[in-house]
């Protein structure tokens, strides 16, 4: 009985309960959308609390210190305290800024981050929107974040912010290409843009394991390029503290600043989740060929935990980057993309195509 329980059956039961009370129709759809949105917001905000706590602990671990350990058990409530502080702070709007754009920018950042979560499959048959263009949707919507950054940098009317925003614009637009090409390699192999089908294609092995070296290359490129895409160190030139004080969000304070932070963590989760979905099989458990007993044990672990475990692993890697690497210079950053990553991904795409045509993968 317990084994039958899954997030998708829970969702179906809930849907049937609502349908029996309200009846199928437009009203039900709107109600379900609102509920789903609320659940998503609560989930992502809690997740950001966790990621903030995790980042501090990971940083502390690497920097021979303890990290937060006073507020709540093992310091877990520290991030809640910080959030309360940010909420109580005055959200300043500089006098000479473009006030409308200045206040709009953090919202655009958060909204785009939330939108990208929609096609992610958290568990078997449990996702908000299983659109047939899942990967395309993700890469197109996530690139809207650059508008928020440029808007923030421009409307602040601060020279440092402007420099940060301009750097970020060049950076995100460039690295988008590599991300797209490395995702395309999996799209070629699985033959679909739909998230659920990409996961289904990995039923007998994750793409990273059965895809040979072209997929390993696209995985590495995806991790590098997505770290740059979400403006995290060593590619955090947009906010380069030591060079531009805080880059595009220099003038932001209070909750407006917290929104940038929130969107940064959601983006971190989203890119890791996509990497986990397309390369590591999403919620698919780890299976070894014909080793039935082992496979059955793995099946007992719910898909949600598989998905979150893989995502957290990639998040940890990206955090590891941040706390060990120095920052690149702006011209080196663009060199890396245009001279190395992009040509490699192009050649790699051809290799993947050949591999897919002749069925050379497992």
């Amino acid at each position, binding site marked *: 009985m317990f084994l039958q329980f899954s997030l998708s059956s829970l969702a179906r039961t809930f849907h049937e309960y609502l349908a029996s009370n309200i009846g199928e129709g437009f009203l039900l759809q709107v109600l379900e959308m609102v509920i789903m949105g609320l659940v998503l917001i609560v989930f992502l905000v809690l997740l950001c609390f966790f990621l903030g706590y995790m980042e501090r602990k990971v*940083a502390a671990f*690497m*920097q*021979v*210190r303890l990290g937060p350990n006073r507020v709540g058990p093992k310091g877990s409530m520290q991030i809640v305290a910080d959030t309360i502080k940010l909420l109580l702070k005055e959200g300043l709007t500089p006098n*000479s*800024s*473009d006030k409308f754009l200045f206040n709009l920018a953090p919202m655009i950042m958060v909204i785009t981050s939330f939108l990208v979560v929609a096609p992610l499959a958290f568990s078997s048959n449990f996702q908000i929107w299983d659109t047939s263009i899942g990967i395309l949707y993700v890469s197109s919507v996530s690139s809207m974040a650059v508008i928020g950054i440029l808007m923030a940098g*421009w*409307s602040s*009317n601060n*020279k*440092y912010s*402007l*420099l940060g925003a301009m*750097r970020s614009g060049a950076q995100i637009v460039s690295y988008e290409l590599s991300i797209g090409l490395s995702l395309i390699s999996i799209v070629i192999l699985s033959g679909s843009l739909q998230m659920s089908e990409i996961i289904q294609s990995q039923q007998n092995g994750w793409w990273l394991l059965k895809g040979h070296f072209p997929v390993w290359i696209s995985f590495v490129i995806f991790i590098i390029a997505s770290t740059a895409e979400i403006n995290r*160190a*060593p590619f*955090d*030139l947009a906010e*380069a*503290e*030591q*060079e*531009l*004080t805080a880059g595009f969000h220099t003038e932001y304070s209070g909750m407006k600043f917290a929104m940038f932070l929130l969107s940064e963590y959601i983006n971190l989760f989203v890119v890791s989740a996509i990497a986990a979905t397309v390369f590591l099989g999403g919620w698919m458990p780890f299976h070894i060929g014909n080793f039935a007993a082992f496979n059955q044990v793995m099946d007992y672990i719910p898909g949600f935990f598989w998905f979150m475990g893989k995502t957290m692993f990639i998040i940890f890697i990206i955090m590891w980057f941040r*706390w*060990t*690497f*120095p*920052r*690149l*210079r*702006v*011209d*080196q950053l663009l060199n890396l993309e245009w001279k190395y990553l992009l040509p490699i991904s192009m050649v790699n795409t051809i290799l993947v195509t050949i591999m897919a045509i002749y069925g050379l993968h497992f």
Partner: protein
Amino acid sequence: MNLLGEDIVNENGEFVINMGPQHPSTHGVLHLKIWLQGETILRVQPHLGYIHRSIEKMSESLSYRNFIFATSRMDYLSAHINNLACALCVEQGLEVEVPERAKVIRLLMAELTRLSSHQLWWGSTGLDLGAVTPFFHAFREREGILEVIEETCGARLTQNYMVPGGVMMDLHPDFQRKTKAILKQVKEKISEYHELLSGNIIFQQRTQGVGYISPEDAVSFGMTGPCARASGVSCDVRKWYPYSGYEGVQFDEILETGGDCYARYQVRMKEMMQSVSIIEQLIDSIPEGEIQAKTKNVLKLPKGEFYQKVETARGELGVYIVSDGAASPYRVKYRSPNFSNLSAMSHMAKGAKIGDLVAIMATMDLIIPDIDR
């Protein structure tokens, strides 16, 4: 044009930003005015004076015992060495002979200070280049050194330990044991430093070929210390004009030929090992005896001029005293290493990017209170 319809570039099409006086990477209140073309630096103009405390003028009303301690606030990371320079200069005028034990203690303290200063520099260089972790690792070892210094002279940062004729008080009984322990730790961890930062490809790309200065330029700008030695200019005062017993210890003057940020980095990393070696030579053979020469209560230097230079962690510090025979100096002038080194910055930074400027500042190891005094 910005939102208010004002031009954000000046009449020559240059984008002017002010870096500092409050800025995370200027390590204090240095104010740099930067003219930019995009990200490329056209010229840099340092503006000084934000932390001028007129230490030189103040010294004219302080006694020869007291004026020394104002120098702890100049280059606060090499406080011992600054104090030593003044003490040596006063001793030169008094013509007192410093006891052997005091000389060795002074040397030990000076080298410990150099070691801790270079460690802080290593951490902050990492921080300036965007790697936060080195900072904490550097502070771990620096803490051990500061503990040793604190036990002996009671202060961690602005130590006032050197007095004319010797040192203020004797070493702590634990001094030798603790110093050996921390040296062992430092030697182990320096290889870890290299693993974490020096070997990193991003770090090497950020520093190699950045901020080049030729030996000729280094000399003409009056650069001294590790910055000049990175360009191949031999200028170690400890070697050329030994003082306080440096003639009796074995150490190498580290010379690099690169002249860029990476060479300056390497010079300091190797100097740390040299400091360790100097301390190891002395730590087991601290002679017994007096720690202070007998001096009068009120010190009076004979009429004349006295000059003493020492090698601080940043370069050559010169102390120039003019005495009219009274109990306080008639005029004091310091030749501080950072002031001369800073003058080369605009030359180094020309044509570089903003990120390079930060790397140049970091590897020059600027201490702003030393520039302004």
